[in-house]
């Protein structure tokens, strides 16, 4: 019983940390540019597929990541530049942005289907083996995933609080007009915010791929999950997204243990609806 419980907690922490990375990307883009990105899940799959392509050439994770991370960043900024920036001049741009990113998602997913076929691809694990301490067996993969996700979160925190680019992002999030007055190029901020979010969700895709595989439509699940987490934490709130990711990751682990993994989304929605009734702005969010 205690062993099972410990397994559940470890699994919750591990998936919670990965979810936090992905929810942060969504919260960043929504908080800074008010864009709801429907292609988010497709970028998750993109990370997985790129990793699969590179690792197919026997070059190992470090070299593959060195190529994939800048690639994802570039694809993200280019996407923002060509599919979202032209919309901003229009009156109902928020809706157009949703349509545009949804179109992009369907484009990307069907492209995966056409290029990679309908069958799921599997990635090798980051680290093999398991750690056995005091009767608890924890796989190295889980430990590595959690450690990498945690360091990404900490790294992002440093970036947002200690660097000029990060501070510029926060300034734009707080007051768009004010930040323009002090000379921040908000179009550039939007672009690299989108790029960073793409890297975050792509990294999530790579971290989860050995466990859940990569499939053409696998991103939709992640899109909905990332959204539930950001909404639970409060749309646009970074810290809220991290808290929510760990809470819901833990819930998922317990639900998977007691009821089965397929119930996760349903239970999450129930929790979210309760949250909407009690506190519609989410854990740490505000309306507007």
């Amino acid at each position, binding site marked *: 019983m205690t062993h099972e419980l410990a397994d559940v907690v470890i699994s919750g922490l591990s998936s919670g940390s990965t979810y936090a990375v992905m929810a942060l990307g969504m919260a960043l883009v929504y908080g800074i540019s008010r864009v709801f990105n429907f292609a988010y899940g497709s970028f998750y799959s993109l990370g997985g597929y790129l990793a699969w392509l590179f690792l197919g050439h026997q070059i190992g994770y470090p070299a593959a990541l060195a190529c994939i991370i800048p690639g994802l960043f570039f694809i993200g900024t280019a996407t923002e530049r*060509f599919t979202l920036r032209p919309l901003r001049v229009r009156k109902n741009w928020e809706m157009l942005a949703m349509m545009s990113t*949804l*179109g992009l998602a369907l484009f990307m997913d069907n492209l995966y289907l*056409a290029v990679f076929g309908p069958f799921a691809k599997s990635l090798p694990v980051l680290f093999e083996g398991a750690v056995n301490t005091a009767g608890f067996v924890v796989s190295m993969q889980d430990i590595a995933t959690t450690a990498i996700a945690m360091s990404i979160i900490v790294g992002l925190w440093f970036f947002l609080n200690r660097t000029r680019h990060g501070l510029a992002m926060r300034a734009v999030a707080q007051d768009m007009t004010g930040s323009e007055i002090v000379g921040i190029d908000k179009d550039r901020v939007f672009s690299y915010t989108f790029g960073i979010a793409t890297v975050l969700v792509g990294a999530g895709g790579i971290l989860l791929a050995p466990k859940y595989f990569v499939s053409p439509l696998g991103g939709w699940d992640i899109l909905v999950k990332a959204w539930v987490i950001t909404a639970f934490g409060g749309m646009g709130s970074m810290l809220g997204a991290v808290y929510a990711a760990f809470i819901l990751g833990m819930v998922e682990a317990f639900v998977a243990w007691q009821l089965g993994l397929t119930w996760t989304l349903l239970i999450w929605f129930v929790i979210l609806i309760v949250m909407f009734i009690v506190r519609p702005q989410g854990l740490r969010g505000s309306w507007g």
Partner: protein
Amino acid sequence: MKALKLSNEQLIFYIVFGVFGILPIFLNGNLAIMNILTMIMLYAVVATNWDLMMGYAGIFTFGNVAFFVIGAYASGILAMSLGISPWLTIPIGGAITAGIGVLISLPCLRLKGAYVALITFALHMILEPFLKSDMGRAIGTGGAQGLLSIPPLSIGGYTFSSLQPVPWFYVAFGLSLVSLYVTHRIINSSWGLSFVAVRDSEPFAKSLGLDDFRVKLMVFGIAAFFTGMAGAFYGHFVGILSTRVLGLDLFLLLMVMQVVGGMGKFPGALLGAIIVTFANEGLRAAGVYRLVIFGAIVVAVVVLAPDGIMGAILGGGKGRRLDRFRRFARRAFGKETSEAGDSV
């Protein structure tokens, strides 16, 4: 000549339905084309009601394919398990869908853009596992297999057959005509005006005592009703039903129809349905790349020409090209009037 005082929107609406109404006479019951025309009529209903919710009422809903499927399953199950005539189960299916639509809309309408989009999208996502689950099986969804022998429509002694497409077409035609007419009336009623008011300045509209919640709730119900009816008809028309309808295929097609036709431009979704359905048939040769092309079209049209075909026809609300047509029509009918400015 009151009929000539039509607005551009009405003109397109009547021309399209006029042409579709007589088209079967020239086609000699060509099975393939008649089936495409029937599907265009159904798609027009779904796309137009979706556009009514999204383009006019400003509700970011992505649950309309789910409404379509709910209507189809509800009607199919009622007809199969209780043996009720499809003529009754189609409107009942619509009513059940409307009920579920209103239930979903109650939490949605208190929330904002992206929240509504994902709650309705969640309905879409949850529907497939539900229909396949034991719970779904218990109400007769047939699980993963789906419904295999949905009874066709019949009048008196005549049973509609898949080999004779013309009667099917005219039922779909009637449904589409009624649904689009209702949409047209809603857009041009005080409801339509209240959407514009809320869209332009929500605080001001509300300060005037405008209760957009109630209106949006009604629109949600009406749109779900017609979408459910279209789905119900589809079930009886095709005869089999599975959760495959919930795939990205139909979802994407309907989105392209709205975007190509022009979002929030009334008969746009109808024109989009015609163009996209034929394009879809034409692109069958492209195989797996067909949907890739459609996805790219959505992005391109949204970015480059968000008003779609209707924007091109109406030329930014001035309607110059159609005015020329109307002048021609007036001359042809021998009544030259000087109502140049009556177009919207």
